């Protein structure tokens, strides 16, 4: 009877895992916000974006969330004229990563909020399971 509750917990856990993976990619982006190319004129760190997909978990017969492919953000790099920089090309232009820290922080907040929502489901489901067990006390 309480199998359904275990299913709810499994689904919420998949959400927690997905949001955790999203946070990991966001932190990677922020950490590499200033990672330049190692060769003169080369490309710097390219921002990465996570994707989510809904997948039917056959063992529980419900839609769990999975982290899809992590895709590169193909927007243009920021170009600054810095002739003295080791990563500068022949014209003295340096490419900076296409990471906007403000955007990443906003995204991080969103991931945190979704994580908390999933955690809330776990708490509520656990409470309901406890209530079921408490029926034994009479």
């Amino acid at each position, binding site marked *: *009877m*309480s199998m*359904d*509750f275990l*299913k*709810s*917990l499994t*689904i*919420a856990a*998949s*959400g927690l895992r*997905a*949001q955790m993976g*999203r946070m990991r990619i966001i932190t990677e982006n922020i950490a590499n916000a200033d990672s330049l190319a190692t060769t003169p004129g080369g490309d710097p760190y390219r921002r990465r974006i996570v*994707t*989510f*997909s*809904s997948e039917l978990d056959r063992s529980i017969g*419900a*839609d*769990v*969330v999975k982290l899809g492919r992590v895709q590169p953000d193909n927007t243009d790099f920021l170009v600054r004229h810095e002739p003295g920089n080791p990563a500068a090309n022949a014209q003295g232009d340096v490419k900076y990563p296409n990471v906007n820290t403000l955007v990443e922080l906003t995204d991080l907040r*969103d991931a945190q*909020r*979704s994580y908390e*929502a*999933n955690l*809330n*489901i776990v708490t*509520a*489901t656990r*409470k*309901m399971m406890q*209530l*079921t067990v*408490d*029926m034994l*006390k*009479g």
Partner: protein
Amino acid sequence: MPINDIPILSMLRERMQWQQARQQVLAENVANADTPDYQAKDLAPLDFSQQLTAALPLERTNPNHIADASGGGSQFATGGGGPYEVRPRGNTVSHEDEMMKVAGNQMDYEAATEMYTHSLNLIKLAVKE
């Protein structure tokens, strides 16, 4: 008479099963809150009058009486009203909405378990006297 045949207990049991199924649907919604094109789902409300007629069926005392048309159909079908908002990625899950539903579901479940225990206590009382 098995304990599951007592109407109030079987009704409460069905109610609790419905709430368990609903908790699962709500968990799916929250987990998929960032999945593109995911549509929020919810269970169709449990019909009390239908439950009542199932627990206390109407007897046809005369074959000329019109048969009871209620019953049938899946009472656990997923349905839902219009979404509160659709986000640019085509997702209709609203965190606030889902949290309210989860809280409500938990309280209703608590009420059902309390009533179940209470009903059992009444039976115990009757046995003791």
